[in-house]
Structure formats: C-alpha cells, structure tokens
C-alpha cells in the first residue's frame, strides 16, 4: 500500500494510521484510542488485519514488545500517506459542508 494506494483503502487503515500518528501504541491502546476519537470499536482480528497490511506496505513498523503488549509506530511513509488521505478527505468534507449549508438556506 503506497501513498496513492491508501486513498482507496478502508477507513479502518486510516483510523489506525491516524491513531499511530499521535504516537506509538499497542493493540489495546489503539482500540481504545480509535474508539475515543472515531466512535468505532475495532476487534482484534480486524485491527491486526489492518496492521498486517500497513506493516507489509511499510506504513507502520513493530517496536520491541513490552510484557505481552506489542506496540507499533507509524513510519515516515505512513505519515505521508495518511496526511494525503486526510487532506483529500478534508477537501471533500469542506466542499460537502458548503454545499449542504447552501442547500439548507
């Protein structure tokens, strides 16, 4: 998954990258963080499905384990990828909001 590739990827990958953009996290912390800022609760299978794809694409990387927790951090490529995706989403959101506002007048 590249910067371009993430544009077509699931929102879950964006959520994971967005969470990791705030700092390295292990699985449980990721689930709680995403639930906190997006209101979406990922299961462990779904979360690791995303992590596997993102790690393979070089967008996240594993850090040494702490006890039985396994933290990950976002890579530079991951930051660029999620930034591109969020900027695009923000642009669409801005257009959408202005149109909706116009329609509501």
């Amino acid at each position, binding site marked *: 998954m590249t910067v371009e590739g993430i544009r077509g990827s699931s929102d879950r990958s964006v959520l994971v990258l967005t969470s990791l953009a705030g700092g390295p996290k292990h*699985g449980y912390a990721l689930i709680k963080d995403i639930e906190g800022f997006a209101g979406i609760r990922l*299961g462990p299978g*779904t979360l690791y499905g995303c992590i*596997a794809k993102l790690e393979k694409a070089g967008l996240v990387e594993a850090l040494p384990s702490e006890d*039985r927790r396994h933290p990950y951090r976002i890579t530079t490529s991951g930051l660029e990828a999620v930034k591109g995706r969020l900027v695009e989403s923000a642009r669409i959101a801005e257009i959408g909001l202005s149109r909706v506002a116009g329609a509501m007048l």
Partner: protein
Amino acid sequence: MLYPKNWRERYSEEVADLSAELLAAGEVSQSRLALELTKSALAERARVWHRTRTLAVLLGSAALIVVVAALLATNTFGLGGSTSPRVTWTSPRVISVGLDSIGYRDAQLSFPPSFEAITQTPGGFTGMLSTGSASGGTCVGPFRDTVVCLLPLHQVPSAYAGEQPTILNGVTVYRDAKGDYYAPSLQVEVTASGPMAHRIVDTLTRNRICTHAIWCGSITVTAVG
C-alpha cells in the same frame, strides 16, 4: 487455524495477547470475540486467495503466450518457421495443410498434417502432396522424400496398358508394378514415391470434401510462396 500460515506465524501471538487483554478487561465477550476472529480470518484467507488467483492468471497467460510462440516457431500451425524446404519459385501456389485430407476432382487422399500440399510439383520436398497438372514432367521422380501426386486423368496412360482392375476402398483402380494407379471413375491418376508413399495412396476414397472439383481441400490455407 483459519488464518493463513504466514499470517499466523507473524501475528497469532499478538492477537492472542490482545484478545486475552480485552477479555480480562471485560471489553468483549468470548462468543463475540470468536465471531470477530473467525470473520477476520476468512477475510484474510479471501485476500490471500485473490492474490494467488491473480498470480495464477498472470502465470497462466504468460505460459500460454510462450506455448503459442513455440508452436508458431515450429510451424505446428503451418504459419511459418517450417523445417521443410520453402518454395522458391513463384507461379505455383503453396499451401500449408492444417488437416489431413485433400480432395482433387472426385478423389480424396489422407496424409499427415505435416505434409505440404501444392498445386504443382517442384520436387525435393519432405512430405509433399501435389495436385494438378503433370505438364512438363513436374511430377516425375525420383524424389528423395515422400511425394504423392494427384493428376488429372484424361485417358488411360500407356504405362497401365494391360493392367487388371482392383478394388481400393470401394474404388476401381488400375495399378502398375510400381504401385501407382489410376481411377477412371474418379478422373485421377495417383503417383507416389518415398517412404510413406503407399500408406498415403492406399487411403484413396471418393471425394467427400467437395464434389467434382478441380482442386479443393478442407485445409488451413496459408500461402507462403
């Protein structure tokens, strides 16, 4: 166990640890956890299968291209690259034969697909089957390779004078000592020489490909000269 092997080796321990932590914290029930993991495992399986299938399609396509190229190069389709001598003269039409029968007038012969069928006889071909005019002695051997000629019969050739009729595949023919024959009912004379000559001339039947034709054949036609 539902997850693909590579995925399992890399992530199963982490997923198990996270699941245990979620269960311990009361964040999820066991049944819900089992359902979610099963769903994710199947999704991962499907993703791997899709990737494998795509790879298989690509490899299959590449293999097909290689096979077709090899077939073309070895002239299996009669489209070029033949190991047989090419025709160098210009007037006769030369045709690569894809099927195994040829019709001329009311006669039909069968022959190996590797044979070449031509309308006149230049001599020196490997596995040549000729139809048409014998003018100029073009079908007179000896030939080094197997050559079969189907010639128009206008009158009984002198070489067959005094021969007794025999029946070949239901057709009355007159043979000479060499094995050549003419078939008045089919309006042809058949001459042959070479290792496979008599196996071919003995396939004579009434023409089922076309009726009363000057020349025709159910063949793949590719003019090469």
